[in-house]
């Protein structure tokens, strides 16, 4: 059967040229799509098919990507203004009154500034310190109140947060140079001891470096707390080469912005940490997978990499040794799931960011099927200090069982929200009272969301439990170190609705429990929060949470249950009230 509509059409020369610039590499699929979108402000089936043909990939793969990543669009857009829909921005916009729905705000702004911009909602931008935040094309802005749309159009970008003031009780290691150096100057960095750890490491052999990191007891800072040294050991002991180092800077978890601050204040620290990792693992190439919303930080990293290369601290034969190491910066395009290490690797390989089957784990079968370690920005940033001052010193920083220091973020209704660095074992009370300056406006504590969006929602009964990576079993999680403190004005039901809204949008859709479970939980919570609850809603939420936790494919689905279950445990009464439509 011949189809008259199908005629041979050569690939558009423009796309062919763009693909050639990327070496016609399948791995460049995401960059290519982004560039086509930048040139044409839209992706069409034709341009996607052409791009696929140029890269010799099936068109469905690129179409799948174009519809997967939120920064790519099949609808024509003008300049894009993304309104953050993260919990902190939502809370800030609510400002004590009834919360402003992000959809309402988007349409309101679209009417106001629609001439120039396409306004759209986006998941947490990682600008919680500047909430309520927006992203104007690729420029971060905040705080931007609901009535300040026009100011943003005129080029106003809000105020940068100053993190240089040390809070009482803080122990600054990774953040010690904040405000003391110009982050864009490698001379400043060198004068202040950055790269000393690397130089010291290069004087010993990789095995010694590995042992030092292992004996420091450094645990991964992405949230799971897996020992960094052990992960590196797995990679180093794999016989196959090349081995790869990947830095997970896809900081898409709502409430978390520590990696952004670390990159913004001292990018060389991260580069140094990664280079040490490369030396220890016997790798010579590394990627920093940074979320697409952090364009500013990505450029800063690229600049820092160039500077380090010029000083022979990166590139071929580092500091005259025979160790060579290169770091590439890869930008994501808006997908929370890409923070999951196997999804991140898939995305890096130019595919939809869907998690892979595990086992095999990345240390055996990672990027390009080779041994790969994926670590968080903060984990890498801690490494130079361990090498410079020794594992014993790192352990001595903390009197608690977990060694070293950790970045914390305290947000919401506290007097002094923000970021600080401290040892492990803090209690929520300490975080609120000592570091956060106490509850704002003398309001009373109601609940806290601990860890991140996939963290626990706790009431005052857990205020005095010391928090570390294992305290999740006691009901309060550390996650990536963020704590959203809410006073009596916030209902845990609406907070949970906001979280599920995020998860339902960010679920990749691969497995059934998460794909439908998040969506259905959100529907139920919307009803509950709107006072339209029905008998049985609570049971359904519980069953769905159990299902997602037990049966989901990856950590995203499994962890959606954490806030759901903890909220239902601590605030069962509130949920029951909502179920019975009792007005609060």
């Amino acid at each position, binding site marked *: 059967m011949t189809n008259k509509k199908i005629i041979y059409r050569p690939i558009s020369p423009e796309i062919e040229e763009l693909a050639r610039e990327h070496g016609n590499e399948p791995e460049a699929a995401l960059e290519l799509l982004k560039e086509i979108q930048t040139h044409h402000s839209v992706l069409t089936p034709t341009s996607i098919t052409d791009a696929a043909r140029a890269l010799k990939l099936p068109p469905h793969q690129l179409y799948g990507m174009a519809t997967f990543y939120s920064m790519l669009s099949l609808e024509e857009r003008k300049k894009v203004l993304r309104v953050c829909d993260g919990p902190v921005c939502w809370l800030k916009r609510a400002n004590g009154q009834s919360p402003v729905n992000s959809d309402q705000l988007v349409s309101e702004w679209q009417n106001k500034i629609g001439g120039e911009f396409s306004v759209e909602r986006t998941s947490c931008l990682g600008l919680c310190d500047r909430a309520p935040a927006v992203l104007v094309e690729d420029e971060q802005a905040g705080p931007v109140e609901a009535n300040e749309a026009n100011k943003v159009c005129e080029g106003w970008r809000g105020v940068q947060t100053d993190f240089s003031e040390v809070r009482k009780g803080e122990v600054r290691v990774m953040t010690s140079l904040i405000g003391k150096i110009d982050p864009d100057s490698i001379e400043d960095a060198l004068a202040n001891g950055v790269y000393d750890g690397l130089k010291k490491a290069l004087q010993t052999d990789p095995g010694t470096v590995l042992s030092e990191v292992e004996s420091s007891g450094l645990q991964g800072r992405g949230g799971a707390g897996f020992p960094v040294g052990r992960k590196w050991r797995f990679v180093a002991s794999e016989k196959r080469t090349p081995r790869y180092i990947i830095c997970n800077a896809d900081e898409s978890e709502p409430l978390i912005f520590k990696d952004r601050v670390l990159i913004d204040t001292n990018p060389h620290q991260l580069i140094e940490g990664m280079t040490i990792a490369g030396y220890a693992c016997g790798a010579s190439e590394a990627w920093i997978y940074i979320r697409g919303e952090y364009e500013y930080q990505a450029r800063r990293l690229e600049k820092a990499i160039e500077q380090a290369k010029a000083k022979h601290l990166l590139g071929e034969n580092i500091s005259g040794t025979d160790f060579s190491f290169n770091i590439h910066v890869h930008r994501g395009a808006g997908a929370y799931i890409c923070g999951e290490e196997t999804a991140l690797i898939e995305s890096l390989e130019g595919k*939809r960011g869907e998690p892979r089957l595990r086992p095999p784990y990345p240390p055996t079968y990672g990027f390009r099927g080779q041994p790969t370690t994926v670590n968080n920005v903060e984990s890498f940033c801690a490494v130079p200090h361990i090498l410079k001052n020794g594992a014993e010193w790192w352990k001595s920083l903390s009197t608690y069982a977990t060694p070293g220091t950790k970045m914390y973020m305290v947000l919401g209704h506290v007097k002094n929200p923000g970021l600080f660095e401290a040892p492990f074992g803090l209690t929520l009370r300490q975080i609120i009272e000592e570091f956060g300056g106490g509850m704002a406006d003398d309001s009373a504590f109601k609940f806290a969301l601990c860890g991140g969006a996939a963290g626990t929602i706790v009431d005052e009964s857990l205020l005095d439990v010391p928090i570390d990576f294992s305290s999740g079993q006691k009901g309060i999680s550390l996650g990536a170190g963020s704590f959203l403190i809410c006073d009596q004005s916030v209902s845990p039901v609406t907070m949970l609705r906001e979280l599920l809204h995020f998860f339902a949008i*960010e679920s990749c*859709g691969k497995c*059934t*429990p998460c794909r*439908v479970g998040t*969506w259905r939980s959100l529907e139920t919570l919307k009803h509950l929060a709107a006072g339209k609850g029905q008998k049985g809603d609570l049971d359904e939420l519980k069953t769905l949470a159990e299902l997602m936790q037990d049966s989901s*494919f990856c950590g995203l689905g499994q962890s959606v249950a954490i806030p759901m279950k903890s909220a239902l445990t601590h605030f069962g009464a509130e949920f029951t009230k909502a179920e019975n439509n009792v007005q609060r």
Partner: protein
Amino acid sequence: MINLKINGKEIQAESGKTVLQVAKEHDIHIPTLCYHKDLNPTGNCRMCIVEVKGGRFLQAACVTPVWEGMEIETSSEKVMKDRKLTLELMLANHPVDCLICDVSGECELQDLAYEYQAKVPDWGAKGTRYPVDSDPNPFIRVDMNKCILCRRCELACAEIQGRDVWGVAKRGFEEVIVAGAGVPLLEARCESCGQCVAYCPTGALSNKMNYGMGRAHQVKKVTTTCSYCGVGCQFDLLVKNNKVIGVSSNPDAPVNGMALCVKGRYGYDFIHHPDRLTKPKVRRYLLEGKKKSDIRNSIVDSQKSKVELSNFGSPWDWVETEWDKALDIIADKLTDTRTNFGADTMGFLTSAKCLNEENYLMNKLARQVIGTNNIDHCARL
């Protein structure tokens, strides 16, 4: 060999195998949906989850390798509850039209729903999310409302047919299967082999030609060998009221398994076609023992014979006759040609629709009987 326990039973298994494979070898039933033995397992649907002692989460049996000392429960209360709930989540986005669905009776989702007594939750997504019969492909009927996103179609197209037409687009609850860059199948390099239809566990992809003509229990399956080419694929003809209404893959086919090409799967409509020749036909003048040159001359000679000819039909007409008569005529012509013009003025072309034995005989006829090496086969062209 490693030792493990499934449902308390001590089992020895080869290392490297999956829980599902080992369970199957020991006749332990684990339900599957996205898994198919011909395709790479993906672990998407979460129907084959089992409880592994000491594990924090339930594991998908199709992708979890066995290990020494593993203790597995395949039907604990938790497992059964989760499977049923997962099924309900699938059913919530699946139209409840088994009553009129073409694949009812051979639908794997329906079978599992029956096994687990799972019903569509009352909150199930109402209405139709996608257009029904959304693709103009003449053979493949697409109804994405019935899709449960198991992705078997994607794998069948990529791994078996190597065409990479189907893929997954969007994410989360919006996720949907698309052809190419969201275009109709035929524009996405589809060659209409129907592999995706054969592997689809539901009615999302079905056959367009026999849509509504018969269901699994109404048809008799007759295994046969494809008559199109020399590969020798086997499949089942679906016979209803003594008529072939379709073709379905026979998983036990030795040569091809489930795979078929567009001709084998969809080229069956010649069987009952009114134009199909069931008896030989020869030109009228040959039946009457005349020569071609005679007829030409007689027509040119007398225009009046036109009237006469039209009464009895044209000498060029095809007239039905018996095999013996037809073969006699052919034999005479062949002998005649060889005698008058020589054997090498003839050539023999055989067909892929014939058996190997028949092709061999044709070769014998050409070389030994007629005496020419001018023989060829359509599969070589």
